[in-house]
């Protein structure tokens, strides 16, 4: 399975891991304290967690906060770069989508009817 966490007992850095647990779309996901949200997700084997308008999945691309591919919502705050945000115990992560059918939950029917010219 890929991607994966380097095992602590084989790590030349001599790690002393403590777990960190976040929820992702309601599911608990455990990583290593100190990892970014992207690190936690990747170490848990997830490679895609954001969906573009065409439905294509995205995850980490640049890894250093430039490409904005890895955006997630954290505790209700949207558009957080998962590669830059340190995971904290209890973070509630929600994945994001721009697929129109998923996005239009409020729907445009909220609009006041405005076909004054009947051109559409």
């Amino acid at each position, binding site marked *: 399975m*890929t*991607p*994966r*966490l*380097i095992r602590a007992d*084989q*790590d*030349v*850095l*001599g*790690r*002393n*891991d*403590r777990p960190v647990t976040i929820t992702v779309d309601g599911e608990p996901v455990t990583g*290593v*304290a*100190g*990892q*970014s949200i*992207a*690190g936690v997700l*990747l*170490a848990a084997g997830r*490679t*895609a967690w954001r969906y*573009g*308008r*065409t439905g*294509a*999945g*995205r*995850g*980490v*691309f*640049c*890894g*250093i*906060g*430039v*490409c*904005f*591919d890895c*955006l997630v919502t954290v505790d209700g*705050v949207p*558009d*957080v*770069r998962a*590669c*830059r*945000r*340190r995971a904290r115990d209890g973070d509630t992560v929600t994945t994001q989508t721009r697929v129109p059918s998923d996005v239009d939950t409020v729907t445009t029917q909220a609009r006041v009817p405005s076909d004054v010219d009947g051109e559409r």
Partner: protein
Amino acid sequence: MTRVVVVGAGPAGLSAAATALGAGARVTLIEAAEQPGGQYHRAPVAEFGAGRPEALQHGWRDFAARRDFVLSHPRCRFLPDTSVWALEDPDAAAPAGRPTGPTTGPTTGLVADPGRRRTDRPTHLDVAAPHDPTGPGSTAVRVPVVHVLTGPADGAGRRRQAIEADALVLAVGAHDTMLPFPGWELPGVVTAGAAQALVKGERVAIGDAVVVAGTGPFLLPVAATLLGAGSTLRQVLEANRPGRLAAGWGSRPWQLAGQAGKLPELAEYAATLARHRVPVLLGRTVVAARGDGRVEEVVTARLRPDWSVLPGTERTVAVDAVCVGHGFTPQLELPVAAGCALRTEPDGRSFVAVDADLRTSRPGVYAVGELTGIAGAPAARAEGALAGWLAAGGPDRPAVRALRRRVAAGRRFAARLAAAHPIGAAWPGWLRDDTVVCRCEEVCVGALREAADQDPRVSKLGTRAGMGPCQARICGPTVAALRSFEAARRPDDGARGASPYHRPLAQPIRLGELAASAEPDAEPPEPVPDKENP
């Protein structure tokens, strides 16, 4: 006392902070990450409890010494977790009624670093440094106000401050350039820098069966890092051919002498790859990635010198990750926002134009490290050291002249690197009409080709390429290159380039944060008189 603000705490910025402190300045060091180091010295944060953080690092001892010197210095204010989201012309901010010119006064005889042994000194320059009243810090220039947000990355309700400076050193670095190819948007296709950062900062290996491709010596440490993480490297592919590499690297070898440390480091990576019997192929690259929902295989092909594909040389390699880097793109939005002029390399890459003393075209603003050219950490440190000293108004002296020589040597090294690893002009031949170019808005080549005869701004609005959350950081230079490529095929076209680096909002800021007013620059702590110099 001169107030020097350094943006970025990688090798260049940290050196700049160190010498600015040594020259007697009050320094504010701003870093987006939680700890100094930049990409080169990226390391797990303390929570990992790593007993041997140096195990993966080159030059860690020097780095750690310099870091400790800077962070513990009484005249240094270190702002981690801090993003610069705007640079504002002070005259635009307050058109009238404010004094012009910095509040510099003479400072005398400050010894920056009395307690250290000479062998630990981070630079040549952290010695007694009477303030030079003719230095740039004391001329009546007004450098941009630095608007920052401090708090968890992309958080809401971060602390907003407006920091004033007498001199500004920009050391924000670069990110991988990645040219698009069919399938590059699949999960599992990452930049070489991402693969490196995931191992160094997260202890995550991006895949088990990996191809590393692109151009430039940086591919070697990335490959070595992945080997160290237990990945199997199927291939390492350098797109440029042996003739080009030899012409770039081989001639005038004495010019490499100034880059002590860089060449042994690269040789060590090469030896690691050889030991693991990793196939390293020249003149070949990844031209497509395929897979169902994530990358499962890549198509590689032999390239001509202009990077057009040699037909019939395509091969398929099964992978679960591919790491690609076609050199580096400097993060130019802050220099552009500060009004610094850029220069363009023959292959179209832009960097900040600086003189031999790292001065940009904007008085009081210095640019160092990968903003000025790609030459690796030693050159970045030399540039930072020189700029920090001069920004603080440090006087000329033999050590300064020695630094100038190191900076010049770094410049020559960068030129050779660029000559050996150019981007071939024919790379758009890899693309298909349905290849994604703008990853954010999922704009494909076909749509851009159709709009190629429009003014760049009009084309951008029509296609939305570059209008998504990354604000053209990834696709901007590519779209500009594609337009030139298209224009070359249609000589009647009058398309002109637009700067893909103009981003007055340098980082996203939440509306609530923007609506709140900035805290005025908190009075930095009173400098503590040095022991020898009460």
